[in-house]
């Protein structure tokens, strides 16, 4: 199955059961249609998005799964951050409705043809979509909420964990030396 697809696409083997192909954004519908109809990758299990603000692109992964649920195929494509538009794949996979709606809310990607791109988890959200990396969560939180007193002396978790581990290690070494 993978071999037959390899005739048409350049397939990268990411893990034992995970494969990846990279396509151009214009080829999305054609590719998914072709793979969905001609191979065993028949279920869309997820659409993921990563925000590469340095390259000014969103990388979307359409993850397809086989009927036996034993292999996954990632179809990766880049879209520009400022004109983030893609055709919907609703007519091929109805379950994409929620995933596209979620991506629209969290990243502001428009899926042309999907009629359900209204509020989902966030109601009356007025800022830019919160998972875009230019959205400053901490500044927003500090402005929007009042914290209860007592968090002023909070410490950096990573540094504190490191320090405590070093201390415990020292103590252990001391105990062992005593023995």
């Amino acid at each position, binding site marked *: 199955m993978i071999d037959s697809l390899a005739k048409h696409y350049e397939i990268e083997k990411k893990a034992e059961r995970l494969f990846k192909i990279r396509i151009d954004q214009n080829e999305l519908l054609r590719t998914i249609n072709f793979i969905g109809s001609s191979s065993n990758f028949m279920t869309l299990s997820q659409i993921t998005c990563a925000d590469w603000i340095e390259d000014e692109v969103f990388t979307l992964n359409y993850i397809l799964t086989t009927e036996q649920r034993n292999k996954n195929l990632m179809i990766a494509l880049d879209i520009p951050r400022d004109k983030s538009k893609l055709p919907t794949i609703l007519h091929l996979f109805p379950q994409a409705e929620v995933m596209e709606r979620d991506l629209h809310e969290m990243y502001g990607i428009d899926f042309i043809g999907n009629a359900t791109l209204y509020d989902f988890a966030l*109601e009356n959200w007025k800022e830019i979509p919160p998972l875009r990396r230019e959205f400053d*969560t901490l500044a*927003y939180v500090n402005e929007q909420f009042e*914290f209860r007193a007592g968090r002023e002396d909070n410490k950096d978790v990573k540094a504190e964990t490191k320090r405590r581990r070093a201390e415990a290690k020292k103590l252990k070494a001391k105990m062992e030396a005593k023995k």
Partner: protein
Amino acid sequence: MEEGFIDYQKVLDNEEHAIKSTQSVIQKAVDWFRSKSMFVLAYGTGCGAIEMPPTFTSRYDIERIGVVGVATPRQADILIVSGYCSYKTLKRVIRSYEQMNEPKYVIALGSCTINGGMYWDSYNTIKKLEDYIPVDMYVNGCMPRPEALIEGFVKLQANIKDAKREAGYIKYRENNAFYKTNQKKIFGDNIEPTYEANFVGMNQ
């Protein structure tokens, strides 16, 4: 302060909330009956909802102290806000709370309701529940065990019985402007779930 509870924290226990007048005998009896029959709204927000089934079923069986679950806010005395509260949930919580008949009490379960907990820097999770609805009892922990919740109920029963402290619903009635201002601050004018969210795509 007893371990596992922020019952006596300053927020709830300052002077102004202490009731100075003495109770009449009838009022005492009424409060005693009230404390022995607490109807809890079967509603869960966040991960604390997981702790409620064991609390109400045979393992911990909270019914032995008079706590029963009911289906609708209009029959309930107690609302348990069991964990983090996002904007969307908070709207529903406020709506449920306002539908409940007085006397009504709120138990806030978990660190998230106290100071945001692990969601302290989340963009859509509230940090202090008592800004939006009055809280009668905080049970801290992440998550608190059913034992902690039961002890919270027992403390709340004692508070109701002895009328030590002004109940939350009275605060909500008297300082309504304070709560409404805070609610307005995050919801804008759509304080209640008005179902007028952005349904642009719906008509297509």
